[in-house]
């Protein structure tokens, strides 16, 4: 079944190639692109099912055995991330049918979208450090072109900042890979899990800092997040939604991967730094949101703040905390992308994202109001929505180890999150329509479909959190003990040597 592990990458790449050939035949592109996302999510779900039934799946490309070739590895975490990518792909592909204008389609929106998916899934599935770098580049270039597609001044400005800061990340990442290779002579992550503990701990700690920065930029951690608020409010909502959902989470995933599999030799140092960064990320993000008066900018800053909770889960490095981090990621992707999609519908009604130019939507569009409230209140952590459980688990994990300062930070930031979600609600929905603003007729139902779907998913996670927590728990268990990962990639003999110093 090893083809299944590669499928979430190969499928969108193949579709991208096909769509590229079909450039100019808009209807065909739209049908194929959307249909392929349905196939993508189906294959991903099968992958997750097989992983949860039979354990970690590995594919060795070209049949070159690890660590000599490149391995793709699907453990619970990777499979979960791939499934959620598939869900986002379907949601944004459907939304894009009405949101992306023919101009952008003519400039290659559809193949770019597929390349982006391939890059994201590649980063989630690869078991090779340099190969991860390659997928990072794929998704960086695809996202950059998507971001600037349309060539608007605002987009270009945001795009330049986006790409410049992300190139720093690439540079640091590449430098760190070189150092790791110099120390261990390998790039295979399972192999590294065996060899890094045998290397000088101090040197490995320094290299770990470089990875923290490289992925921290991707994940928009404090004080590296500038590219995100500078760029996320510029592209069309279908693009912004998948960016908001997935891109930072690739960084979070990479941090979780390397700081559970590779750099756990000095947790007291590395993970304490992560915890500090997590706290500052939460606070600065939410304060940034409190200072905004634009629907999308508030949402953008909230991504940063919420990333802090996920990193908090990683930094605490207990089974419960990692469970919380994984659960948080899934919850957040769904909720945040949905809020961006809702913002797009609001814009179609009222013609603006500026809170001062919005209003009257509770009266005019009660159904849309509910569709906003579900993700917004979930993000704010109101029970019993998904965000409540996510926050509860990470906070509980922190309380468990007596990390009270971060508990306090997490709860206060929760209150400030409530504040900025209600700010949007009061301005756009409750307050009367400002003078001179007219509401347009209700937008196409096709825009509502993904929003409804994601809202139902949020409710499902909230009310039946049990199964979702169980899958996250399986992921956390694997992360806390990488033996299974190493065994799956390198075999029993290698797994037995893990953690052994020479």
């Amino acid at each position, binding site marked *: 079944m090893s083809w299944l592990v590669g499928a979430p990458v190969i499928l969108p790449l193949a579709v991208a190639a096909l769509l590229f050939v079909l450039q100019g035949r808009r209807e065909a592109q739209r049908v194929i692109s959307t249909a392929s996302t349905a196939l993508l999510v189906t294959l991903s779900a099968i992958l997750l099912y097989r992983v949860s039934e039979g354990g970690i799946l590995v594919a060795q490309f070209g049949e070159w055995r690890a660590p000599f070739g490149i391995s793709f590895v699907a453990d619970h975490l990777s499979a979960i991330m791939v499934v959620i990518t598939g869900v986002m792909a379907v949601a944004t592909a459907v939304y894009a049918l009405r949101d992306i*204008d023919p101009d952008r389609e003519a400039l290659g929106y559809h193949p770019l979208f597929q390349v982006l998916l391939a890059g994201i899934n590649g980063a989630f599935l690869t078991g090779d450090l340099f190969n991860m770098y390659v997928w990072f580049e794929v998704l960086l270039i695809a996202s950059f072109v998507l971001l600037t597609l349309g*060539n608007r001044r605002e987009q270009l400005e945001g795009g330049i900042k986006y790409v410049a800061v992300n190139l720093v990340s690439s540079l640091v990442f590449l430098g760190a890979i070189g150092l790791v290779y110099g120390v261990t*002579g390998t790039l295979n992550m399972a192999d590294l899990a065996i060899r890094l503990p045998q290397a000088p701990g101090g040197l490995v700690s320094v290299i770990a800092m470089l990875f923290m920065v490289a992925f921290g930029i991707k994940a928009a951690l404090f004080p590296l997040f500038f590219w995100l608020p500078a760029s996320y409010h510029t592209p069309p909502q279908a693009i912004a939604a998948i960016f908001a959902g997935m891109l930072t989470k690739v960084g979070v995933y990479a941090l979780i991967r390397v700081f559970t599999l590779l750099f756990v030799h000095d947790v007291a140092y590395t993970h304490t730094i992560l915890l500090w960064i997590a706290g500052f990320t939460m606070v600065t993000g939410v304060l940034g949101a409190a200072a905004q008066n634009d629907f999308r900018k508030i949402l953008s800053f909230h991504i940063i703040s919420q990333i802090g909770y996920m990193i908090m889960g990683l930094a605490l490095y207990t089974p419960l905390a990692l469970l919380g981090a994984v659960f948080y990621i899934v919850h957040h992707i769904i909720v945040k992308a949905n809020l961006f999609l809702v913002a797009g519908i609001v814009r179609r009604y009222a013609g603006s994202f500026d809170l001062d130019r919005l209003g009257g939507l509770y009266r005019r569009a009660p159904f849309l109001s509910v569709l906003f409230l579900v993700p917004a209140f979930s993000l704010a952590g109101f029970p019993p929505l998904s965000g409540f459980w996510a926050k509860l688990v990470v906070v509980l994990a922190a309380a468990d180890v007596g990390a009270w300062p971060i508990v306090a930070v997490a709860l206060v930031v929760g209150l400030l999150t409530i504040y900025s979600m209600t700010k949007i609600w009061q301005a756009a929905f409750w307050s009367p329509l400002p003078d001179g603003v007219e509401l347009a007729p*209700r937008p196409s139902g096709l825009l509502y479909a993904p929003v409804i779907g994601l809202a139902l998913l949020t409710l499902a996670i909230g009310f039946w959190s049990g199964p979702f927590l169980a899958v996250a728990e399986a992921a956390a268990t694997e992360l806390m003990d990488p033996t299974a990962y190493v065994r799956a990639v390198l075999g029993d003999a290698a797994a037995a040597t893990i953690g052994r110093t020479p």
Partner: protein
Amino acid sequence: MPGGDRVLIAVLLAFGVALAAPVIVRVAGDRSGWVLALLPAGITAYLLSHGSRVAAGESIVERVAWVSALDIHLSMRLDGLSLVFALMIAGIGTAIVIYAGGYLRGDRQLPRFYLLLLAFMAAMLGVVLSDNLISLFVFWELTSITSYFLVGYKHEDETSRKSALQALLVTAGGGLAMLAGFLILGLVGGTFEISELLSDPEAIRGHEAYLAILLLVGLGALTKSAQWPFHFWLPNAMAAPTPVSAYLHSATMVKAGVYLLARLSPALGGTPAWFWLLTLAGAATMLAAGSLALLQRDSKRLLAYSTLIALGTLVMLIGVGTPGAISAMIVFLVGHALYKAPLFMVAGSVDHEAGSRDVTALRGLGRVMPITWITALVAGLSAGGLPPLFGFVAKELAYEGLFENPLLLGALIAASAVMVLIVYLVAWRPFAGREIHAPSAPHEAPLSMWLGPALLAAGGAVLGFAPWLIGDSLMVPAAAAVLGELHPFRLYLWHGFTLALGLSAVTVALGVVLVWRWRPVHDALRSRTLGWTFGPVGGYDALMAGLVRFAAWQTRVLQSDDLRHHMTIILGFTVALTGLTATFRGELAFDLRHEAGYFYEYIVLVLVGAAAISALRAHSRLVAITSLGVAGFGIAIVFVFFAAPDLAITQFLVETLIVIIVALVLIRLPRGSLRETSNGSVRAIAGTIAVAGGALFTVLTLAVTALPFDASLTTFFEAESYPAAQGRNIVNVILVDFRAIDTLGEITVLAVAASGAYALLRRSFGRRRDDVDTEDRSDRVHVERGGGA
């Protein structure tokens, strides 16, 4: 498990009916109040059917697994305390649902209103019936959220929106503190099940975290029950429609804090910290509310302050915690519910039928609204603590419960005197008199709006004469649940000539004085205190304003528009984090011995160094980029020296292209921007970061190369390249076979980059008008297209 899971089903059913309410309202039309009232009435009947078992000391306990992984269950527990609260919620809820049908008749938002009101009721039942801290918290927050939407019901009015937000932030903020307290409590007690926690109180009271638990849980309870200094949200919440004020902000939700304190008092109570926290908060609330009430002339705000007085009394009695005080607390709770809800509804009826809530603008309404007036009088006498009403019984008990604490007793007497004044202003002044004064032509309220309040007020009268009706069956078991053991007591209307009776007389006398001197005192205070902003309200406003200012400042500092600023922070952070780790944690070992190089290697070294300095000192961007190109060429030459011509060629090409492309871009920029305007300090910071970064990577490279290199990969590639992969050039085989997936990815990158460049160029050469303008227009067209589809 006696009773199956029926208590839970009752709660869930209430949520279900709430969700269906909009549909029911559309079908039932004007009768929807009566139809929907069947739900709370049914729940009331269902609860009463358990009365005898609870009275016999039994608790009905149920548990349904919810999130087993986290020890979170939908546990329900119906004992004396929760039965009293649940009966209040469902019983008063019945009256409110009927009343709201009349009060909001014809309102466009009525379907949503009932949805929210019934959802609140269900959540509130959940709060008082939960036996699990986390599920209690879930329901607790649901009451805050539904309250938010109900306070903001008239959402197009800015005051409503602000009041709704204020109430939400204060209660949700307290709620989060409470959650922290619950988590500690759960960790200390090893479970989130309340009954299990209460079974071992010493483990909690004796724990070092006790004070933290008390303060955090207390914060949640005191904010929710609007205790000083968090009291200010409650009067502002009067922006809600009257049925909401009567129900949430008088009879039920604001009692959730009281409930929680009572519920947890077996485990948390009985310590000096508990006593002082609650009695001081309660007494301060009573006194603050009593004084602030003198400023009010709006009937609903007056009643809100009287609610604060009652809430303060309840919290104070729980803080005292003696069997007498707790019994008094339970009786006072019920007494208050029976008079305050009708008084609110009466005030709402007057507002509805006579057009004002200003007690100074209304006179003589009793002539046209006789039923409403009688209701007001009966409820008012109870509120004023006069015999023969249940309020009198309750107040006498409260006085007796405080005999050991004369200061607290004094505070209660003072506050009770203000209650007499409030009753006069709300229940007497607008109705009495021969001439009718009112903004609109007043008339009697419809049946739906007088029936509920009249029944509740009558309940207060009946219980005044016959308090034993609920004494042993409800009050004693409830007090027993709070005290942790049974303390039987009897309720009498007539206690004989006791000290309490004397104090009642004093109270009334003080009240009469207040009534007599009200107008001049009121006018004097109002003229002097208008525009006051300090105190807790001012604190809240200052906090919010400060938060927004601080947020704006922080964001200005961090998130400037300047890319160079961002780069400085990011690179500086990178170098600092890594450099400090290397210095203090790295224990890096490397060998500085080296072979003396050839002289041409030193020439390249000097060249690269000079280029770097030139880049740093350049005042023109063109010079800077060219200098960087020279440095890059120097590195490429180093590759040549060390036998890597393929790398060198790549590097030459890349450097050349970068210089050409960037130079082309720079030339196309507007004149003037080619000059570098940065000052010396910016340059110094950039130079420092650059040098530190370079040093860092040099040191790291040295440290890594000092280690023995594991060449097993290279060995494998050399061995397998030809036999297994049929290729003699190992690099080629690595690129297209061993690591072909990397190459696939890089090809993709190039393809996308090319298509992206094509898109950029096509668009910018395609139209050279102002791009922002064009884009706005195309977006608008786009919106219309979306709208039409």
